[in-house]
């Protein structure tokens, strides 16, 4: 026990004496949360569009005005030639063409049908889908107005039989930031914990001090605990700091129990730091550690469901996520913070992560040979 305290004492002196450490601890969360939460959003605004109005009638102008009034669309340019509009899309200045052929108004008034064409750049499928949905809803709105207008002329009106009412739970205003912030927090604590731990251990290898440790009577597990604990503290501090920023700046809801969140985070961090340690026991330079940790982090984070729900991933990817600790925490932090889930809702993830932590740390201790 005493030995571990001596190691911890030494580690904390070294951490706080390191001049780059305090900026990392305080600046990283501020920058990540303030920048990424705003930037990493799926809400679409300002879709650039080109209008090809070949009808130039009052109805076509009314439709264009509807698009103009919508916050989602921004008319880049008006033209009369579809060819020209296409070239604008090709040059990436717009993503969407609204083509109103001549005879649109005539059709609407005389035959009760008017045709228009939407041309959407679908390089990004999600964006194209959303553009379609938004555009269709603008047109549907316009349609309804046309019907109401025609009621005055043609009875009886078409009535809507089923009325759908929406209610968005847990994030009533569908504020994307509230969804993203917990995700960014997960990345933050993982980044800090995993990188700092793995770099720290391999630095002892590079400096040669590990040799001196190896000839001393320090036991493997004492050394590994001495290396884990300081960064566990720092990462948990980061989580607290990030939550404070989230509350003050974004007013995120903290519905669930914070002690439960921190308990879960601690178990999660044991896994993340354990992976960091494992990487560093297998590497001999800081470069190697950086490359491997970066690769592991990137895969884990992209698959964790930070942007897209894991449920919509292919089956095999969901299976892979069984060994992805980030996916567990990503889900649970949102459950606790946004939904107020209790221990009974998350116990399965908790138990699995706990087993994972024990396994990965044992592996790290075993792989850390006390051989120079």
């Amino acid at each position, binding site marked *: 026990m*005493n*030995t571990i*305290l*001596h*190691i911890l*004492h*030494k580690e904390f*002196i*070294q951490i706080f*004496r*390191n001049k780059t450490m305090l900026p990392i601890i305080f600046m990283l969360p501020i920058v990540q949360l303030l920048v990424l939460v705003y930037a990493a959003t799926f809400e679409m605004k300002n879709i650039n569009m080109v209008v090809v109005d070949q009808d130039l009638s009052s109805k076509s102008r009314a439709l264009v005005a509807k698009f103009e009034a919508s916050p989602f669309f921004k008319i880049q340019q008006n033209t009369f030639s579809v060819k020209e509009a296409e070239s604008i899309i090709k040059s990436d200045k717009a993503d969407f063409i609204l083509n109103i052929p001549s005879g649109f108004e005539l059709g609407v008034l005389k035959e009760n049908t008017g045709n228009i064409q939407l041309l959407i750049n679908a390089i990004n499928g999600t964006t194209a889908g959303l553009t379609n949905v938004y555009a269709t809803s603008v047109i549907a709105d316009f349609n309804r107005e046309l019907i109401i207008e025609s009621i005055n002329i043609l009875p009886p009106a078409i009535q809507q039989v089923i009325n759908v009412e929406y209610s968005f739970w847990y994030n009533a205003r569908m504020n994307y930031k509230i969804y993203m912030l917990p995700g960014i927090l997960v990345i933050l604590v993982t980044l800090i914990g995993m990188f700092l731990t793995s770099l720290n251990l391999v630095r002892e290898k590079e*400096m*040669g*001090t590990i*040799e*001196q*440790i*190896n*000839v*001393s*009577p*320090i*036991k493997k597990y004492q050394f590994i605990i001495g290396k884990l604990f300081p960064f566990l503290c720092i990462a948990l501090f980061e989580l607290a700091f990030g939550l404070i920023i989230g509350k003050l700046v974004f007013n995120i809801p903290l519905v669930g129990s914070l002690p439960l969140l921190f308990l879960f985070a601690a178990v999660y961090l044991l896994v993340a730091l354990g992976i960091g340690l494992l990487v560093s026991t297998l590497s001999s330079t800081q470069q190697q550690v950086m490359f491997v940790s970066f690769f592991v982090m990137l895969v884990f984070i992209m698959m964790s469901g930070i942007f897209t729900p894991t449920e919509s991933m292919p089956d095999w990817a969901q299976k892979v996520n069984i060994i992805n600790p980030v996916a567990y925490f990503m889900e649970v932090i949102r459950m606790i913070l946004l939904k107020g889930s209790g221990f009974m809702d998350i116990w399965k993830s908790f138990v699995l992560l706990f087993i994972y932590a024990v396994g990965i740390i044992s592996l790290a201790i075993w792989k850390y040979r*006390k*051989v*120079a």
Partner: protein
Amino acid sequence: MSKEIIISVQNLMKKFGQFVANDDLSFEVYKGEIFGFLGANGAGKTTAIKILCGLSTPTSGKISVAGFDAYTQTNKIKHNIGYMSQKFSLYEDLTITENFRFYGGIYGLNKKQIQDKTKQLLERLKLEDAKDKIISSIPLGWKQKLAFSIAIMHDPKIVFLDEPTGGVDPITRRQFWELIYETAHQGITVFVTTHYMDEAEYCDRVSIMVDGKIIALNSPKNLKNEYQAKSMDEVFLKLTRN
């Protein structure tokens, strides 16, 4: 003349796959002597030292260090030895006192013992005024003496020095050897590897290794007589050229 044996090595073999790093080594080291362990690069010195320090398990042979078995009692061995490599192994971002505290602590010294030892060793080096200096800011010669002091801080029975004088100037080397003598006088056995043949002259006994085998083991004086050489340098060249 009866001397207490502190390291006993009989028929030590160490193989890495097909490669034989230590081929049937047998020697004894006596308490309180300065034992020089010489050999060209790649002769197998480091492998042997690692086995003696309990870092590596021998393939075969009977080895006892400070009375403990090198197969089963490596942790007891580690408590009873000190070690200093050419890298010095001090924490560059800690102060002198903090390094003493850490290394003293992991060898199980209590607070009082650490303070006393630190004071005593720094006085000997005349570095009391520098005790709060960060290691990275002090000269190489100081680091080397400090690393040595830390290696003997817990009063080990044996201290292993693996090329301790690499890269330091002749005056500092001289002072360093004075430290080694003092330590040996206190009864701590010194096991030292070196490249400098003038340093070999300071040892009580010297072994010379070539290709994993010990080909000579005697006092420098006897070796010089035996090979009719003026200096250890000549002895070494004569032995290693064949």
